[in-house]
């Protein structure tokens, strides 16, 4: 089924490696076929307790009262957890890298924002006892009006889903209700295009559906620590999230995992670890919290839905001259990782093509459904569906074969992309040519002769055009969404320094190294029109004043710190440590 085409790009490769490039058997395969591979739940504990949560039946409701007395007295019940038992009951996943405000409780406090939101946790001697006691928890709700549609949620007067973001959108740079991409002048290009085509696309939500459901087992360990067997996709991501929520130092948690029964993005959110550890802390016994299949399906965060509008300006010869994308990520009730996906999507626009005028407005909207999260292709899968169906329509409108149309508009080495960086290492044209050949889809001689290495980076393709700017979509000012353009950024202007020097430390022997650390061109002088860039270099430093320190301390020092002595002496200055994401997006943790 798989064929390697070693003839293509052969001059860019050294095919003399010893084991890289060989189909060596997987290290884990003998364990898999003998059933000796141990997943998180394949560990025995004496005195194991089982945790089940009581979930909201309402998409949006105020909690009037909670009565756990009957559940607490039920047979086998060891402990009932309520919101007040959670030491730090407000978190957002990306607070570990200082991005976004804490907006999600581990157990709901005053209101519930989606069907399935955890409100109370019951810990009992057996799963059956925990399930039986769960039915005895009495919660009185006052239903509130929910909102399920992303565009409805952004209208003035819509029900407030997430009190941390009262306008129902994630706030970018403390200025806008969306992330902008602006390159050239799309409106002028639409006006002179031969054909303008606009369509709406809708990506469905998707369930990750790993065969192993989310879960973890937490147990008191010697030395006053807690061991946690987990299915987390990021071991330290989950450890840091848990440490924050249960208010423990990171070294009192011992996370064991690394072998996971499928994830696809659905095991990044630490859905079970914090409450399992809290249960172990409060009972002194091992606590197992595993989602059953129905919980995994309904309340294990899905791939979020996305609504995407694409407007393209096309010339009769098949060149795309303008593309505008407006899209809405459905985050559900809380942020989780959606805020990041919108940035990734922004950098991806307009797809693997060179288009001289491009703009996009990517929104993250809150609705009263289960919070969505990362999934395979996060930020890209949906917009690729929309872009490529749109490309099919454009090819038809131009009267061109879809393959030829892709090759005509494909990006090539040296082309400037709308995020104002030069494309390198491209290979779209070759992929189209090879797929066409294998599928017996005839291409013209001209299309077969094209190359990603030739024709890019020439003339307008190498230039950053004069760009129309606007202040549309200011936070809390829905009337600003239709505001006119405010000015033009001169051609060639850049505001973000080119400081992508990879850091690769630990390579004290460079002599026999089979690969070299890549070096990038030094950053040019900042463009004429922009504000000064954010602080370029900073190191994790003093712990913050907060009573619940994040696992990764933010860098509070506003002043640039000199490069540390371990930096390679010959290299240009590099960035070390985690730069504050707040300086990237201008959103502070609160």
């Amino acid at each position, binding site marked *: *089924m798989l064929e390697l085409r070693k003839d293509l790009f052969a001059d860019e490769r050294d095919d003399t490696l010893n084991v890289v490039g060989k189909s060596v*058997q*997987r290290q*884990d*395969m*003998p*364990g*898999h*076929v*003998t*059933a*000796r*591979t*141990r*997943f998180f*739940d*394949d560990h*025995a504990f004496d005195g*194991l307790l089982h945790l089940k949560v009581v979930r909201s039946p309402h998409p949006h409701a105020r909690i009037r009262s909670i009565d756990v007395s009957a559940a607490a007295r039920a047979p086998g019940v060891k402990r009932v957890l309520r919101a007040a038992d959670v030491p730090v009951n407000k978190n957002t996943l990306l607070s570990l890298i200082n991005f976004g405000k804490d907006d999600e409780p581990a157990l709901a406090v005053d209101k519930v924002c989606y069907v399935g939101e955890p409100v109370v946790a019951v810990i009992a001697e057996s799963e*059956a006892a925990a399930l039986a006691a769960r039915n005895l928890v009495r919660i009185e709700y006052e239903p509130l009006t929910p909102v399920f549609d992303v565009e409805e949620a952004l209208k003035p007067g819509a029900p407030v889903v997430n009190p941390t973001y009262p306008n129902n959108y994630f706030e970018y740079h403390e200025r806008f209700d969306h992330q902008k991409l602006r390159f050239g002048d799309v409106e002028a290009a639409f006006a002179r295009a031969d054909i303008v085509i606009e369509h709406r696309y809708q990506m469905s939500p998707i369930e990750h*559906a*790993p*065969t*192993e*459901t989310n879960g973890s087992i937490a147990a008191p360990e010697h030395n006053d620590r807690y061991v946690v067997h987990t299915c987390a996709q990021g071991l330290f991501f989950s450890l840091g999230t848990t440490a924050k929520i249960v208010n423990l130092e990171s070294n009192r948690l011992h996370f064991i995992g690394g*072998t*996971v*029964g*499928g994830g*696809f993005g659905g095991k990044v959110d630490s859905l079970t670890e914090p409450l399992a550890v809290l249960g172990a802390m409060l009972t002194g016994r091992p606590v197992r919290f*595993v989602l*059953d*299949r129905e919980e995994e399906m309904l309340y294990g965060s899905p791939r979020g839905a996305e609504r995407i509008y694409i407007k393209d300006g096309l010339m009769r010869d098949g060149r795309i001259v303008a593309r505008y994308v407006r899209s809405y990520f459905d985050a559900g009730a809380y942020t989780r990782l959606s805020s990041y996906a919108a940035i990734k999507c922004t950098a991806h626009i307009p797809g693997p093509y060179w288009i001289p005028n491009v703009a996009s407005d990517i929104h993250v909207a809150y609705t009263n459904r289960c919070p969505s999260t990362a999934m395979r292709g996060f930020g890209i899968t949906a917009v690729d569906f929309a872009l490529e169906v749109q490309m099919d329509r454009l090819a038809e409108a131009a009267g061109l074969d879809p393959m030829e149309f892709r090759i005509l508009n494909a990006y090539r080495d040296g082309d400037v992309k709308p995020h104002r960086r030069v494309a390198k290492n491209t290979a779209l044209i070759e992929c189209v040519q090879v797929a066409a050949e294998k599928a017996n889809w005839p291409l013209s001689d001209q299309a077969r002769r094209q190359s990603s290495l030739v024709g890019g980076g020439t003339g307008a393709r190498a230039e950053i055009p004069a760009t129309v700017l606007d202040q549309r979509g200011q936070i809390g000012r829905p009337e600003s969404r239709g505001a006119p353009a405010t000015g033009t950024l001169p051609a060639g202007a850049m505001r973000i320094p080119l400081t992508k020097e990879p850091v690769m430390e630990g390579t004290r022997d460079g002599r026999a190294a089979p690969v070299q650390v890549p070096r990038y061109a030094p950053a040019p002088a900042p463009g004429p029109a922009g504000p000064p860039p954010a602080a370029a270099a900073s190191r994790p430093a003093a712990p913050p004043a907060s009573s619940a320190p994040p696992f990764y301390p933010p860098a509070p020092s506003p002043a640039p710190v000199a490069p540390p002595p371990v930096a390679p002496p010959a290299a240009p200055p590099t960035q070390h440590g985690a730069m504050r994401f707040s300086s990237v997006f201008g959103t502070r943790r609160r």
Partner: protein
Amino acid sequence: MAKLPVQLRLNGADRATFVDPAEPLLTTLRRGLGDFAPKYGCGQGTCGVCTVLVDGEPQLACLTLAVACDGRHVETASGLADGPDMHPLQTAFMAHFAAQCGFCTPGMLTAARALLAHNPHPTREEVVEAISGNICRCTGYEPIILAILAAAAAPGARRA
């Protein structure tokens, strides 16, 4: 709730334990007897990751009562290899890279084992039918189908 005694043969060894009357065999195997080969995937009989053999017939351990297995022979993927020697299905799964996360693999191997016991030379359609109750989210099934067909075609294959 009073516990009930259950004696069964597990992969050829006599084992005894006490179970709740409504306890599924899956819980007994995993939590009572420490055989973690059958996995929990749904508890509803819809995914196949808990597939075991009871007296040679494939059963879903999540829907089978432990007490119903008293006096019977239960076989799991833990007992597929003959000591250090792998079963032809295991070597074929390895050769075809037929596992990724490995979570469905024990159930998949057990379903295939039951097929080959009854039908040593299945067609592709019969293989597909035999594993149609076993969900895999990683591989796209093709390598698993190829591995089972290859195991059936292997010379001198041990069928049981």
